[in-house]
């Protein structure tokens, strides 16, 4: 079985702060991490591989520094890592990115054989669009299952997979066929503390670089110029003031205080 995971290197959102004077993000000194949802996709791929045997490949698009994320993926048990890196990709939106990743994936298929399951996180924490994964699936013209929270069953003979996915009213179970594309939620698994041999193999591994020279990619579909998404305006949400902490000693006294004051406070705020 061959699994291919698409990951993205993102700034650690928990450490990004907003400069309220200029309305821009303070990215200086913020570490880059694997998009947390993608990390669960890697973990799931490795778990499937361990159960059914096979190989896991991983690809990301980004500058050379994204290698560190691929190294981390390798240390989680991934076998092959590819970095899609070329100046022509700079500024790509989700459409251009899904095109480039699709082209990169085709190159990996050429090298390592057909892929049975493609995986990625449900979305990236920096863009929050949830479009790139589905964009790739569309280009491959294969079944797409988004917001997966569990892989229930895999039948290698019939080449089918049963997936539980989140929907607004709860969860639904879907059966589909290989090859398919799955985007995952965080609750699909718990990321394990990787065994030492994985780490050693990762430290020894080299990362293959894909670019317009060694991969069939149409440059006229990549980059900022060829991205239909335009940023019209960016704004900073109002800085929220810290609420008042009410602590009147015991729980009962605090509740009494709330009970006595809530109506007048809400009236003052114009809420009622």
């Amino acid at each position, binding site marked *: 079985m061959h699994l291919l995971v698409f990951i993205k290197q993102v700034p650690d959102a928990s450490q990004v702060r907003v400069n309220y004077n200029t309305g821009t993000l303070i990215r200086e000194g913020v570490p880059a991490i694997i998009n947390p949802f993608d990390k669960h996709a890697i973990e799931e791929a490795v778990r499937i591989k361990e159960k059914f045997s096979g190989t896991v490949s991983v690809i990301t698009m980004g500058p050379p520094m994204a290698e560190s994320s691929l190294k981390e993926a390798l240390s989680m048990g991934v076998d092959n890592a590819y970095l899609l890196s070329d100046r022509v990709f700079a500024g790509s939106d989700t459409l251009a990115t899904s095109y480039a990743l699709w082209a990169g994936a085709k190159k990996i298929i050429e090298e390592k054989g057909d892929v049975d399951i493609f995986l990625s996180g449900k979305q990236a924490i920096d863009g929050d669009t949830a479009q790139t994964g589905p964009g790739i699936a569309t280009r491959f013209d294969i079944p797409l299952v988004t917001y997966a929270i569990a892989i229930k069953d895999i039948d290698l003979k019939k080449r089918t997979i049963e997936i539980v996915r989140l929907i607004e009213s709860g969860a639904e179970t879907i059966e589909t066929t290989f090859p398919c594309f799955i985007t995952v939620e965080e609750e699909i698994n718990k990321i394990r*503390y*990787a*065994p*030492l*041999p994985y*780490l*050693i193999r990762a*430290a*020894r591994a080299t990362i293959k670089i894909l670019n317009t020279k060694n991969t069939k990619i149409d440059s006229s579909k990549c980059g900022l110029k060829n991205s239909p998404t335009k940023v019209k305006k960016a704004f900073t949400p109002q800085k929220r003031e810290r609420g008042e902490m009410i602590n009147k000693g015991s729980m009962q006294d605090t509740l009494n205080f709330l009970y006595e004051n809530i109506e007048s406070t809400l009236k003052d705020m114009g809420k009622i």
Partner: protein
Amino acid sequence: MKRKDFDVIIVGAGPSGLAAGFVLAKAGVNTIIIERGKFPGSKNVMGGIFYTKAMDDLIPEFYKEAPVERHIIEQNLWFMDDVSHLGVSFKSQKYNSEPFNSFSVFRAKFDRWFAKKVEQMGALIINETVVTQPIVEGGKVVGVKTDRPDGDLYADVVIGADGVNSFLAKQLGLRNKIKPNIVALAVKEVIGLDKEKINDRFQLRSDKEGAAYEMTGPFLDGMEGMAWLYTNSSSISIGVGVVIQDLIEHKTNPNDLLEKIKAHPSVAPLIEGGQTKEYLAHMIPEGGYYATPKLFTDGFLTTGDAIMFVNNVNREGSNLAIESGKLAAKTYLEAKQTGDFSSKSLSRYQDKIRKSFACKDLSMYKNMPKLLEEKRYFLTKYPQFFIDFVYDWFSVDGVSKPDKIKKAKKEFGDKFGYVNFAKDLYAIWRYMIR
């Protein structure tokens, strides 16, 4: 057959572990370095001055490529009470030429860079993995256990470069539990400040020149410690380290002490307007020569802070760590020729350490800790007397200078006694200079 995954396992990617890894990998030895931090350097802290020599021998002209801040051209030693400082200052253009004597650096950045070099030499570095204990078979160290699944590793020799707490050396019985009177707790802040402001305030002619200040004296309330202030490219490192025993006895914590130093009238203007960017803390070995544990056993060598290889009088530590790492690596290479990694064979390491400049320096100061423990007033009463005297001397208050000297002589005699003073001078001479 005996299992062997690597020739050498190095525990800890600090300066000594990395230096050992560099030398070994360069010689083609199959080496793995295991680091508990997120990346090499992420757990490492030092005051901020790095002496170049040991590193320059390893990687010539490393400073052209490595993330260094400023080379130090001015050194100050201040004795401070709460409102004054009496200082010695030395600044020389001689320090402005390559290979430079010392740099201000950030360990986190620098060690990460150094680690890359070590990897390029062919050593493997594994991060976020904790070595939990040595594997001992037949009385010999043959590997280590880690906290990872399938985490055992076997090798000819394990080098414990695992820092001041060195659990490995402790587990192997090479050292005792460290006592609170031989380690200092140091805290440090990095305060961001514009380059131009730093250049102006510290009278530096470019962003590359730096100044260093060491501060001790009565303001530490009789505790044995040292504060410091170093200039980085666009920030100031300010910190203080105090022997833990003293912190306990004075029921004080170093954070409060650091705030006190930052507010000192001689220090505050130097950092004014800066913004704290980072806060760090670490333990520093202060035991010196006598605190050095046993350095080796069968299949095991230990280096750096783990052997308390720190010269706190001259604030040298990371360069000594590098030196010890190199010597450990050389010892392995010699032992490898005969394939004998027994205690006897590895004892060459001890000879090498003994012959090193670092050990000679430590030996010179070997009685310092004891001296300062017995005669703590070296840091309090004496400096205070001289601070007061200098204040008096420069004050024009109607008292004649001869009278001031007469008064000072009498006070000195009353306070210390000339015989005692002579004894103290003799003690310093006997303990330190000899």
